[in-house]
């Protein structure tokens, strides 16, 4: 009896210790990013362009807008393809082709992001001899597709079959039932998955190095190279200048902020919509 209790509390203790160990890096990252980044973070950082070396002040307005444009381009490509692939996998679950797609999605999910960057360089940069925001968006989109597809599939499979039957019994075709009943029922979860995928790719550097490259100027032209927070932070962080290091910390803080806001949005969207889906 005593031994059982002892083993049990030991085990709970180990679990608690593991949780703390897992949280330590997160706490330290947040601590360093915030304490270092906050020093260079001001309104100018969001509204001003980078200044030449040695000139104090300046900001990353172009990189912030660039990151937003790149993630928007990636989503534009990945959301329709990802959601529709997810629908296919759940509708034809059990068929050989669906299993093949699932395996392909999982493999693609595991491909290192630098490889996706090089691949996109080959298909979207080399032929046009031009780095571009569009190429960067494609690289990010390729990374998002498998995440969205798998999330969509898993959430669709959770929708009770009775709901689909209800639609069919009212004279809906199979496609109609999926798009008017099953997919909306799973929508809150799918939106959460999409936002989390967004947060994930917003922090990617490697796929952008050979695709959207970087741009010292403010640009919204998708056929031109575009700056992004991640590449800018990378450039500044490896530079020898103290000023740029401070800017890089601030950029990192903004990035963490964007990811944080995305996660909050995902939670909010889930809660807001789940009022209509779960009783």
């Amino acid at each position, binding site marked *: 009896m005593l031994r059982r209790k002892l083993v049990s509390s030991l085990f709970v203790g180990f679990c608690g210790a593991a949780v703390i160990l897992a949280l330590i890096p997160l706490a330290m990252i947040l601590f360093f990013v915030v304490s270092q980044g906050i020093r260079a973070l001001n309104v100018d950082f969001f509204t001003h362009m980078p200044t030449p070396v040695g000139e104090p002040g300046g900001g990353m307005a172009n990189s912030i807008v660039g990151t937003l444009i790149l993630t928007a381009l990636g989503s534009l490509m990945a959301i329709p393809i990802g959601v529709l692939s997810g629908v296919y996998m759940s509708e034809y679950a059990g068929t050989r082709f669906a299993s093949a797609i699932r395996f392909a999605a999982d493999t693609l999910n595991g491909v290192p992001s630098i490889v996706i960057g090089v691949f996109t360089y080959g298909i979207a940069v080399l032929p046009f001899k031009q780095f571009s925001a569009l190429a960067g968006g494609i690289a990010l989109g390729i990374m998002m597709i498998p995440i969205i597809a798998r999330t969509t599939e898993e959430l669709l499979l959770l929708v009770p079959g009775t709901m*689909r*039957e209800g639609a069919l019994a009212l*004279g809906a075709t199979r496609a109609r039932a999926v798009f008017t009943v099953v997919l909306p029922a799973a929508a809150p979860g799918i939106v959460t998955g999409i936002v989390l995928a967004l947060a994930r790719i917003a922090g990617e550097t490697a796929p952008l190095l050979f695709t959207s490259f970087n741009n010292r100027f403010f640009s919204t032209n998708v056929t031109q190279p575009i700056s992004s927070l991640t590449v800018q932070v990378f450039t500044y962080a490896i530079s020898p200048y103290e000023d740029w290091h401070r800017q890089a910390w601030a950029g990192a803080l903004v990035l963490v902020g964007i990811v944080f806001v995305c996660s909050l949005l995902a939670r909010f969207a889930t809660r807001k919509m789940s009022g209509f889906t779960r009783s």
Partner: protein
Amino acid sequence: MLLTATLSPTVSVAADAKATHAEPPKIDVSHVNFYYGAHRVLHDISLQIQPNQVTAFIGPSGCGKSTFLRSLNRMNDIVPGARVEGRVLVDGADIYAPSVDVVALRRKVGMVFQKSNPFPKSIFENVAYGLRINRMTGSKDELRGRVEASLKSAALWDEVKDRLHASALALSGGQQQRLCIARALAIEPEILLMDEPASALDPIATQRIEELIYQLKSRYTIVIVTHNMQQAARVSDTTAFFWLGKLVEYGRTDRIFTAPTEKLTEDYVTGRFG
């Protein structure tokens, strides 16, 4: 024998036969066999269902009554490996003929399920769903009118008229089931199939559903699967008793419950097994 007390004990088999030949049957099933893969679920079922009557299917779990019900509007089509042999006529037309439009069939033969399955939409949108996808209403006013009429038919209107745009999932279990009935009625089916519509409801909600069935039968042909024998005795005009995938006995409800010809039926309706 609480239930037999309310029933007339003097119906003979001959009266049965006469009743079933009064009008052409709404549903005419002959020699239906049903398979899930290699497993045979229904054995040579033949029966005729009369219009504007309530027909109850009773029998122990797994006897095939739900499967049979679902074969009447081809809901089994979506089950992988399901196969039907034999002939099912609705209004004289074979519903398994290759030329049949399943969507049109399901509009004509509506269905209410065991577990209420409202869509995660508003009350209004649930009822409007069938009307919208079948493009049955021209104007918004017409749509509103049809939704209201359907909710009234399902005896739900007074309870929800002030919150039509609230989520259907906020309704109670009994209300949700009546909403599903309203949704099925909105597209004006001629036949309503009900698969244990009250099995998950409390006695009061069950009573409301039964009253509703009674009111609806003047306008619809109703087929109901039920585990509850008192319910079958209360709501139905004719009863079919299924056992191990076979139709054991079929006839007027009062006779099935008071003077069954088969020993098996008698044992089942008197609660000796099942």
